[in-house]
């Protein structure tokens, strides 16, 4: 089972994700505000990046959302729009049709999600 996904969120992705999720924290959608609090620009929602890990997992398991049983992640570092995110994973164990995959998400050499664990059911 190969967990491998690349995605480049476009400039307005954080705005669409804010609308879809209901999280309008200005740090995600207002570059000027983000700069005032010391960042180089508005940052991605961590839960958007977690959703990319979830998507990479279900895709690796064949695409059925019912195959994703569990996902845990640690948010470390910040993601930015207009830069490619790479999600990779390696199978830790497989038991009774359930595969546990150690996963991380990286952007520009920065591991923005670490120590993630996907639990996927083969369907």
């Amino acid at each position, binding site marked *: 089972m190969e967990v491998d996904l690349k995605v480049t969120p476009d400039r307005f992705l954080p705005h*669409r994700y804010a609308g*879809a*999720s209901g999280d309008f924290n200005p740090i995600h959608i207002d570059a000027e505000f983000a700069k005032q609090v010391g960042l180089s620009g508005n940052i991605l929602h961590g*839960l958007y990046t977690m959703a*990319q890990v979830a*998507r990479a997992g*279900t895709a690796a398991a064949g695409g059925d*959302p019912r195959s994703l049983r569990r996902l845990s992640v640690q*948010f470390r570092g910040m993601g930015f729009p207009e830069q490619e995110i790479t999600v990779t994973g390696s199978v830790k164990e497989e038991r009774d049709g359930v595969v546990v995959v150690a996963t991380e998400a990286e952007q520009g050499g920065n591991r923005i999600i670490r120590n993630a664990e996907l639990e996927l059911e083969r369907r």
Partner: protein
Amino acid sequence: MPVKADAVGKSYPETTYEVGKEKIGEYARAVGEDNPVYFDRKQATEAGFRDVPAPPMFAVVYSAASVAPGIFDPAVGINFPMMVHGSQEFVWGEPVCSGDVITTRTTVKDITERGGMGFYVFESVSVNQDGQEVVRGTWTNIVRGV
């Protein structure tokens, strides 16, 4: 100032969320999910779903509001400007589909301090209209300089 653990075990009033087909589509497009089951009722039911299913991470849409009162509860004592979302876990059960009414209850699971940082852990449990558990979330917020 050390963290106070008195609020561990405290829970907050339930929140309810009614899941709509177009909201599922909006969320799926935002996160790049392109499986047609998220958009097309016919394909969803042919794949064995009761109705159009939500992508698993749609869990944040119906359960995040349930966690907010704990984050701002003075009894928990989070210094909000210093808070970051440290880690997150979801364990999924019955799939959530369009038309479902999801009820979520959040409990303060743990409050600890390590290395000058406070770790505030909340657990949310979401069930559908038939009482089936759809997701269990563990939300860990870290506060620097406690």
